[in-house]
């Protein structure tokens, strides 16, 4: 039998999970039965909701568990990999995101990133297929990380009373239900609550560790672990990992869709700020406290799973905190998983079912199908996550983020390089994909000790440029609209133009 505090913690967690379901049902009542409204809320979400849902979506089990884990195992070098993303993330989230937001407000019916790229690059089926492949396949790994995180949280915090499999199945089923019911509104509103819980949980744990740590904590740790005073990894690897991770963020397909979902221009700044500020606090400062102190307090984890360091601290804290922290840890994983599953559902509904298979079902029926697709994807991810994929952060960095990074060159070229055409983009993406796949699965040495995503990014860029230059120019009207006209679009006019649409607004 679980202890009293574990029982209370499970009770609080159950209330939290039911609250998620209630919010989702509530959201479904204001969702119009169209694909666009189900997946991107018809661009009607307020800046405050976008701000919170971006934080919740971008910072996940990877943050709550992986942040402390990577600081524990890699020391300062681990903090550089995850916190160093600020050297590129806010500029690209704002510059590229501002363009995506603007063009999505010009009467477009975008749902997936492929919709925009195909619109710019001459309705290329090839681009739609490749982007859908990258989004669905690479995201699938990322979602399994979240499910693994959920299982880990409940198993460790209940001291084995709930097994990893039981946790994944129960929460996975509930997740599938609330995603299918609520769509983007359900996910965004639950994310808002989950973002608050994530921050609250990290603040409580970091605060507790700090107040209970010895005054000379870092000197004591340094005597045992040199990795907290110097970088123990190659500078080129660290730079390419941090900068590449930061560059990829706006092209995470689920983050990209938040640009479509936001009604106000200020949300673009909020996404950039929320992302960078959270990276500094949640991925740098708090892991430096929790992960480093864990080296001293839980030395046995170095031979086990360092990702559990924050959970070990939660178990060591006074009992009453357990309920909130259990829910916070779950929130971190669920908020990203739900967003990603919904995004994958949008690719299946829009890119595969509606466009590639040329289905002529009504919008209302397709909206219903979308719920089924999203629910089935959640169940599929649940099943795959029951397999052991290894250290959370390693899997995420090795497979998911390099895949998203491939979308950066075409996205930038769409708005800033008039000469870019569909041939170049297709060739670039295929070449980049081949490189990422090769290095991931062969484990071959990467030139200059670069991070695995860097060669794929470079190859995509070079091939896209070269092939674009030797093939026919893109249609003039596409270039005019995306590269030139967009520069002069006034955001306030675009906001006013879209505020009159007949969709529910949440503010």
């Amino acid at each position, binding site marked *: 039998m679980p202890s009293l505090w574990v029982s209370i913690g499970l009770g609080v967690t159950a209330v939290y999970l039911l609250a998620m379901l209630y919010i989702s049902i509530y959201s479904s009542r204001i969702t119009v039965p169209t694909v666009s409204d189900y997946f991107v809320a018809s661009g009607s979400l307020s800046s*405050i909701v976008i701000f919170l849902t971006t934080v919740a979506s971008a910072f996940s089990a990877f943050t709550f568990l992986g942040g402390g884990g990577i600081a524990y195992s890699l020391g300062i070098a681990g903090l550089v990999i995850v916190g160093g993303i600020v050297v590129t993330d806010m*500029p690209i989230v704002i510059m590229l995101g501002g363009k995506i937001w603007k063009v999505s407000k010009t009467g477009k019916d975008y749902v997936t990133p492929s919709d925009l790229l195909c619109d710019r690059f001459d309705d290329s089926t090839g681009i739609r297929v490749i982007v859908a492949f990258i989004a669905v396949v690479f995201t699938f790994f990322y979602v399994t990380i979240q499910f693994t995180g959920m299982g880990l949280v409940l198993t460790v915090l209940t001291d084995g009373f709930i097994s990893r499999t039981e946790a994944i199945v129960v929460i996975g089923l509930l997740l599938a239900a609330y995603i299918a019911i609520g769509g983007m509104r359900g996910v965004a509103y639950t994310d808002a609550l989950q973002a608050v819980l994530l921050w609250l949980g990290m603040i409580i744990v970091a605060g507790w560790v700090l107040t209970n740590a010895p005054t000379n904590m870092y000197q004591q740790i340094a005597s045992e672990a040199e990795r907290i005073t110097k970088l123990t990894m190659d500078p080129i690897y660290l*730079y390419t990992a941090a900068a590449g991770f930061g560059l990829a963020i706006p092209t995470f397909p689920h983050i990209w869709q938040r640009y479509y979902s936001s009604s106000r221009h200020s949300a*673009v700044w909020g996404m950039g700020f929320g992302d960078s500020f959270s990276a500094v606090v949640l991925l740098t400062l708090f892991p*430096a406290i929790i992960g480093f102190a864990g080296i001293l307090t839980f030395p046995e984890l170095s031979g086990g799973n360092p990702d559990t360091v924050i959970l070990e601290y939660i178990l060591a804290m006074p009992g009453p905190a357990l309920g909130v922290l259990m829910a916070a840890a779950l929130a971190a994983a669920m908020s990203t998983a739900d967003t990603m599953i919904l995004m994958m559902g949008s690719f299946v509904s829009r890119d595969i079912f509606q466009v590639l298979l040329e289905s002529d079902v009504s919008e209302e029926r397709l909206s219903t199908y979308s719920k089924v697709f999203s629910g089935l994807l959640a169940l599929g991810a649940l099943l795959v996550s029951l397999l052991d994929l290894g250290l959370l952060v390693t899997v995420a960095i090795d497979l998911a983020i390099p895949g998203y990074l491939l979308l950066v060159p075409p996205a930038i070229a769409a708005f800033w390089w008039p000469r870019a055409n569909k041939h170049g983009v297709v060739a670039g993406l295929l070449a980049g994909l081949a490189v990422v796949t090769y290095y991931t699965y062969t484990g071959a040495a990467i030139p200059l000790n670069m991070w695995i995503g860097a060669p794929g990014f470079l190859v995509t860029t070079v091939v896209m440029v070269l092939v674009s230059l030797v093939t026919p120019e893109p249609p003039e009207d596409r270039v005019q609209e995306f590269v030139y006209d967009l520069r002069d679009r006034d955001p306030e006019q675009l906001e006013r133009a879209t505020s009159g649409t007949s969709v529910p607004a949440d503010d």
Partner: protein
Amino acid sequence: MNKRSLGRLWVLIVLAINVVFLAYLYTYQTAGGFVFGIPEALLSLSVFVSGVVTINSVMGWLYLGKPDLRELFVPRSSGKPSGQPSMEDD
């Protein structure tokens, strides 16, 4: 300063930030000391990333044409089409 000039200036600043970041990565290949009981490498990283976020926040706000940031922290009270359902309406 117009938006395009601001964009160019911001890109230059970002490049400079990346150079400083690389310098940091090479500097701390050897162990630093402690400042106020905190490892120098950690303190430098914390100051650096905090500074970068501050600079980028200001540049991003200017680049976007100074949007109203109150919208990020409080729900907007106007601009919704009348008669539309909303969370509050329900």
